[in-house]
């Protein structure tokens, strides 16, 4: 038996949000290196190595990884279960039955608010069983939450 991949991609703006999230610390690192170079320009080979490492990091984490994640990330909901695929190097497919759902949370970080995105977390009684659907357009996220709380008889049973 196989499960086909979940159907829905995250928001089209997701790679942008992930890239900017990664860009902030990397740019701070780059600025730090620039300051370091201005303050003490001795040992040029060390500066060069550090600069190349940072450049590679930026290309990888700001350029490649967000696109890679965007290709991997998928989510789907039917009347009985929530199903997601996440990750890039390590990929996870996770499925949880809606009858065991305990809470449905929406959460928006500062960058998410800037781009109008939201993350939905569906928790179950197990800390290993929470399903996160990240980087959804805000209206989609609202629809997902409404749909989930509609299906799930939240609080009806112990759910353990």
């Amino acid at each position, binding site marked *: 038996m*196989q499960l086909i991949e979940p159907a829905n991609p995250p928001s089209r703006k997701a790679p942008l949000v992930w890239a900017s999230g990664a860009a902030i610390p990397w740019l701070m690192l780059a600025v730090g290196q620039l300051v370091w170079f201005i303050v003490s320009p001795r040992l040029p080979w060390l500066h060069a190595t550090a600069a190349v490492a940072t450049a590679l990091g930026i290309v990888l984490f700001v350029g490649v990884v967000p696109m890679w994640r965007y290709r991997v990330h998928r989510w789907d909901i*039917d009347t009985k279960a929530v199903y997601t695929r996440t990750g890039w190097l390590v990929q*996870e497919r996770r499925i949880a*039955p809606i009858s065991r759902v305990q809470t449905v949370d929406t959460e928006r970080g500062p960058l998410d608010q800037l781009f109008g995105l939201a993350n939905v977390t569906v928790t179950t*009684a197990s800390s*290993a069983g929470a399903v996160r659907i990240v980087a959804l357009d805000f209206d989609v996220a609202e629809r997902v939450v409404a749909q989930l709380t509609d299906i799930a008889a939240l609080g009806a049973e112990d759910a*353990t």
Partner: protein
Amino acid sequence: MTGEVWQRLSPRMLLVHPVHEVLRQIPLLIGSVVLGSATGNPLWTLFGLGLVVGYGVARWFTTAYRIDAEEVRLRTGVLQRKVLSVPRNRIRSVSTDARLLHRLLGLTVLRLSTGQEARRDAAFALDAVEAGQVPRLRAILMADSLAIEQEASGQELARWQPSWLRYSPLSFTGLAMIAAAVGLLYQAGAVAALQDSRLARSGVEAAERFGVAASLIVAAAVVLVASVVLSVLRSLVTYGNLVLRRDAELLHLEHGLLRLREHTYDMRRLRGGTLREPLLVRLFGGARLDAVMTGVAGAGEASLLLPPCPRATAESVLSGLIAKPDAVSGPLRAHGPAATRRRWTRALTLPAVLLIVMAAVPTPIWVWPVWAVLTVCCVLLAVDRSRALGHRVDAQWLVARSGSLDRRRDCIAAAGIIGWTVRQTLLQRRAGVATLIAATAAGVKRYRVIDVPAELAWTIAAGASPWVADNAWARA
């Protein structure tokens, strides 16, 4: 009597609290003694002692508990008042714990455990009630979940045997205790004081006369013997007199010669068990048993059902509990050549890297036999680890076995599984295997089936949880 009134803990705690408080506030007391002798006024010392003892006594007066129809509440705190309340229908297990001082006074600490993982200060503990009251309190507290049978009826599942001691000499608890003691001595400055003393000098002289190598061997032997003795003693003191008993839907575990501990579990919260066979215990045909329960921590002392004991005992107890002998001792389905290959690659990476390093830089000749021994150990590890991998699944139970140094066989009730994850690293995708993770609310929360063939992962999940095959994404 257990009506809706606030009740105090045992008045005998008026004796225990001050002693504990004095022990806890030793720095303060030393300070007051120093102050007393410096000012030549012994009143300071008395004042410090009085303050500490008074605080201890005040703790008794400020602590009270009440058992209502709906919840149990505990009010504590001398300066900072705190009220803890636990809904009675959330009580999953009751445990008691009596250290030496408590036992001398006939007292017992009573702890409630709920589904929540309470932090240390939020744990619900009645410290302490009279030991005679415990059966009654336990009956009241667990009564909401079940009708309690009379005490001490029911069936004994296991009882400690002196022969179980043979599994303890090889554990590391003795070494750990020696290390802790040395650390304590070092911190207390005893080692620094010894450094120049006559004792140390005569010791060094004796060692020089004896030969350095011989003294080192003697010292190592002494440490080894001491660690074995300590391990055996600790095991005897902790588990001697252990009894595991089942009364209908309650499971009682009782152990400890000096510090007496008792756990009562609600069997309906049992979601399986884990047979653990650390290498050194396994070599002697032993195993230990952990309970997988909701509302009970998955690892460590809280979930222990049997300490290292003969494998047959552990297996029969677990099969008795889960009423499914196949899951406990039945054959497992192996994970195939890809999984085996991954075990070998992992185990042989370290020797391979070392070999390259040793070939690249000149190394003394004695390194080579060491490398050979290491390689043989790694090969044995790879063989053992690939032999361990296996799973078994049916509509009631998921069984997964893995590991060598710490081999475990997890038996998880399918009904308790509330989510599945199929996880693949880049290398796993290339090897065509996946790690299947069953999420449950019980035990350690995640139970892994390592490196199953990728095309089988969802089939295994669906074997235990029919809902995996019954949705919009399932394809035959």
